[in-house]
């Protein structure tokens, strides 16, 4: 009656064993994902953040360094119970903020951007003062850990725009990071030198793997630390900036809009680069980054707008020097050529009638340069006056561009603008196909009209004059780490299309501008020959912009300066004063003309 039941029972045993072995084969041998899961379970990975490179000025003074900062991390799985009232008290946050933090954590976990098993940033950038208090209480809160990192600190409130700022990487930046270097929550240079030299400054992250048990308690290194790496600090940047000169420039620019750029002509090293108005870089570090960023970016004075590189202005009369060089090179003028100051077509100023080239520069004679440009553009290459102007303008634009106008120079900062050198194609577009000739476009002869330059290009231009015909691309970093050399593009000498012998005329004329011309009252220094040129740029209906370019001393120039002060009237006033004070400060070390300094600081330039 019970035949075969013994066998059936044994078959049942075997079937169960076979099912088990198959299932085990699937999870142990075929599906390898469990091995990874086991690793994330048991191995705690700590990222060791490298110290970001420092930034020093040209005399080795520390400009940017690092302050320790602390993030509060959470391992959600380890949080069994949380006394929220106590938590809010210790960490000095409101229950709403705590709830918001948890909600964003849950969202991240749902979207698999975070894991409940891994440490995840919960409150970022506890300040130093907070940390002292928190350190004593962190043990009360299971599942919470402190992670040390560093945040940027500045020894001076100067140079904010050129240095730039560092903040947490944005989602877009993370998505666009093709090198896959960054992780969420990483810090990245967002502007200025911090952004341009990001790859040098950031260093290399290290990692430490440790075994931990289910309570997160560390049980020692994983495989004796075989896979651990140390973090490598970022490289320091040796800047070309003279921080004293920079601070002085910002002091002078207080309350004004505009820029000062000072360059060492022989090397292209930028000695100072002032953008006014500015902000305190310390505002964009630490816990209050977001609120301060809102504040600064909503400021109607646009402190984040880096004027030396980004503000495109008409150059004004300083452009007459470039016109002179082009005319000499093209042979349409000689230094001795005299042209009558015919004020019927274009207005002029001052007391002169029939100057040669030097005199025309000294007195900034508008009719002279109108006529010079006419000769340059209409050289008789074609009988058609329209075609003739096209040919002339094409040549002219090529020369002008060789001074570094019309395109970004390639400074070691992001977001540099190029200005505009009008070409025939530009006027074709502007005139919508209607014909144009010299009489339509002559205002470019005196730096008005369609020309646009950025202040950095003006400074580079005056460096070229100081160097008598060449330049090094202006740059802010002379050495990355201990290399002692700047990036290769800053070691290359650029010549203009003008023969060097023509520059002496410009140098002589600029000397006379300061010695006896428009710049004599405020730009002249006692023992140093300053060569300069004023510019007063029309800015209807607002007051004119005040422009001055200068270099000194005349022989072996050590400093070339361009100053652009918005809405400040004549170039001989605000800009000339500031430029000469900068030269004085750099070459002598202090100002010997307190009256001029007071004049600048008072800021009353319109009268």
């Amino acid at each position: 009656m019970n035949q075969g039941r013994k066998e059936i029972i044994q078959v049942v045993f075997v079937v169960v064993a076979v099912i088990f072995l198959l299932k085990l084969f699937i999870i142990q041998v075929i599906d390898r994902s469990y091995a990874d899961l086991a690793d994330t379970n048991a191995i705690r990975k700590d990222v060791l953040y490298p110290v970001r490179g420092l930034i020093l000025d040209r005399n080795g003074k520390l400009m940017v360094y690092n302050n320790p900062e602390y993030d509060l991390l959470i391992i959600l799985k380890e949080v069994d119970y949380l006394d929220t009232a106590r938590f809010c008290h210790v960490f000095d946050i409101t229950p709403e903020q705590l709830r918001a933090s948890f909600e964003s954590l849950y969202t991240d976990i749902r979207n698999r951007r975070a894991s409940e098993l891994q440490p995840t940033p919960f409150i970022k950038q506890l300040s130093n003062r907070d940390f002292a208090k928190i350190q004593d209480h962190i043990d009360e809160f299971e599942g919470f850990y402190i992670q040390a990192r560093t945040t940027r600190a500045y020894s001076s409130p100067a140079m904010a725009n050129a240095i730039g700022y560092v903040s947490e990487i944005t989602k877009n930046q993370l998505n666009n990071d093709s090198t896959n270097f960054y992780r969420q929550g990483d810090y990245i240079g967002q502007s200025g030198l911090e952004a341009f030299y990001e790859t040098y400054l950031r260093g290399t992250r290290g990692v430490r793997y440790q075994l931990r048990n289910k309570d997160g308690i560390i049980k020692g290194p994983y495989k004796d630390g075989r896979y651990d790496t140390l973090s490598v600090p970022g490289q320091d940047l040796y800047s070309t900036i003279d921080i004293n000169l920079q601070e002085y420039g910002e002091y002078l620019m207080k309350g004004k809009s505009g820029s000062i750029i000072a360059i060492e002509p022989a090397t292209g090293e930028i000695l100072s680069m002032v953008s006014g108005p500015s902000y305190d870089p310390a505002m964009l570090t630490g816990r209050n980054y977001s609120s301060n960023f809102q504040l600064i970016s909503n400021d109607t004075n646009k402190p984040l707008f880096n004027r030396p590189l980004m503000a495109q202005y008409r150059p004004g009369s300083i452009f007459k020097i470039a016109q002179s060089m082009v005319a000499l090179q093209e042979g349409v003028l000689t230094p001795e050529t005299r042209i009558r100051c015919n004020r019927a077509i274009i207005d002029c100023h001052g007391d002169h009638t029939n100057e040669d080239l030097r005199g025309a520069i000294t007195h900034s004679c508008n009719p002279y340069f109108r006529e010079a440009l006419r000769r340059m553009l209409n050289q008789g290459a074609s009988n058609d006056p329209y075609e003739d102007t096209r040919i002339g303008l094409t040549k002219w634009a090529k020369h002008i561009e060789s001074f570094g106008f019309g395109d970004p120079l390639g400074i070691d900062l992001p977001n540099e603008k190029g200005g505009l050198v009008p070409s025939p194609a530009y006027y074709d577009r502007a005139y919508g196909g209607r014909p144009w000739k010299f009489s339509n476009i002559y205002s470019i002869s005196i730096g008005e009209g369609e020309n646009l330059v950025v202040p950095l290009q003006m400074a580079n231009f005056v460096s070229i004059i100081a160097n008598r015909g060449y330049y090094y691309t202006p740059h802010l970093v002379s050495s990355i780490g201990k290399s002692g050399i700047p990036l290769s593009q800053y070691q290359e000498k650029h010549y203009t299309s003008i023969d060097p012998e023509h520059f002496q005329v410009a140098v002589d004329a600029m000397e006379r501008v300061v010695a006896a011309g428009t710049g004599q009252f405020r730009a002249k220094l006692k023992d140093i020959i300053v060569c300069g040129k004023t510019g007063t740029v029309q800015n209807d209906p607002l007051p004119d912009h005040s422009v001055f370019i200068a270099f000194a001393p005349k022989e072996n120039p050590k400093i070339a300066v361009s100053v652009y002060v918005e809405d400040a009237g004549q170039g001989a006033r605000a800009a000339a004063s500031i430029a000469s004070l900068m030269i004085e400060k750099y070459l002598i070390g202090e100002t010997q003309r307190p009256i001029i300094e007071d004049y600048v600081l008072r800021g009353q330039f319109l009268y």
Partner: protein
Amino acid sequence: MMREEKISNRMDWITVLLYGIIVFWGWLNIFSVTYEENQFILDPSINSGRQLIFIGSSIAIIMFILIIDMRFYETFAWVIYGAVLFLCLIVVFTGHEVGGNQAWLRIGSFGFQPSEFAKFATALVVAKYISTVGFRMDQFRNQVALFAIILAPMLIILLQKDTGTALVFSAFVLVFYREGMSPFLILVGIGITIIFILTLLVENEYILFAIIGCVWLTLLLLGKKKRRRITIITVAALMLMGTIKSVDFVFNNVLQEHQQKRIRVLLNPDLDQLGAGYHVYQSKVAIGSGGKYGKGFLKGTQTKLKFVPEQSTDFIFCTIGEEHGWIGSFLVISLFMALLFRIVYLAERQKSRFARVYGYSVACILFFHFTINIGMTIGLFPVIGIPLPFFSYGGSSLWGFTILLFILLKLDAHRLQVLDRV
């Protein structure tokens, strides 16, 4: 003459050897779970040290079992059964709660789980009852009596909130089947389980109704149209639908909340990896991470770092899976298969029905533990906390299984002295 022969010559040493290997390997694994650097396997403050004490005392128990006259077990079956059930009842009222189960009796500092002993006691009574002269499995009265014998300990243990151990007694159904009970009951049990799971899986119960309706119609139209057949098919279909309707009720009202969760997790393993699904998830991760050959003895990270809960007791198999890989799992399963087959072989060679039924009871109880325990660690069964026999840490369970097995070996050693009464 045979009486004078030494018991050592009549012992089934193959079983003893298998028992020894499993216990020893289990002990090594318990050490591996608790292992921390510079720890000594015999340190009595850790589980492996204590387990060695349990193993030592088990040997004493074995001696005792072998010395006692073999007739004692049959004669005093009811007394033992009564005594153990009484202890279990005491536990219900005075018991000490461990891990949600109120199954522990405290004597001084010593915890002790009487329900572990209810298994061999019930096996003895079942064997004794079935071997009674005049017992017929096809008699309804006898069937009722048998089910009463296994239901009594089940209910008492359920009162201790130890569902796992209570369920072990259903293993006796397989013994009854071997002794001639109609397989109908087992099939109905399996069928109800399938329907239960289907109902939980399929959101809309009307789909199931529709399927049953279709099958019912097909059977009606295809088969012979005898009245008896139509009645049976129709009643069966209605009963099925009733079962489906009652599943929700049973699920929500009869099962405890954590049991509901465990079943839901089984059906949908990703449901709650940190809550109810945590055990199974971590257990699968541990076993799965072992790979083909495992991470090596004492080198498992998951078990060592205590990700798997209750790893020296109910989840001891994780350590095997993690540290010894699929090969290790294969060896453990093979060892248990060898033991089960040996026990069935021993049972079949008994001359007395008592010894044979007892032998099958041993096999079926061990098989049930083996199936549920390993099945739950790899996510095939809901988490029901019952130990892996001889392997899991714990005194009561080791003693309970040792007694269970060695009574059989004692009976087997004297099998030739028994007069065939059947």
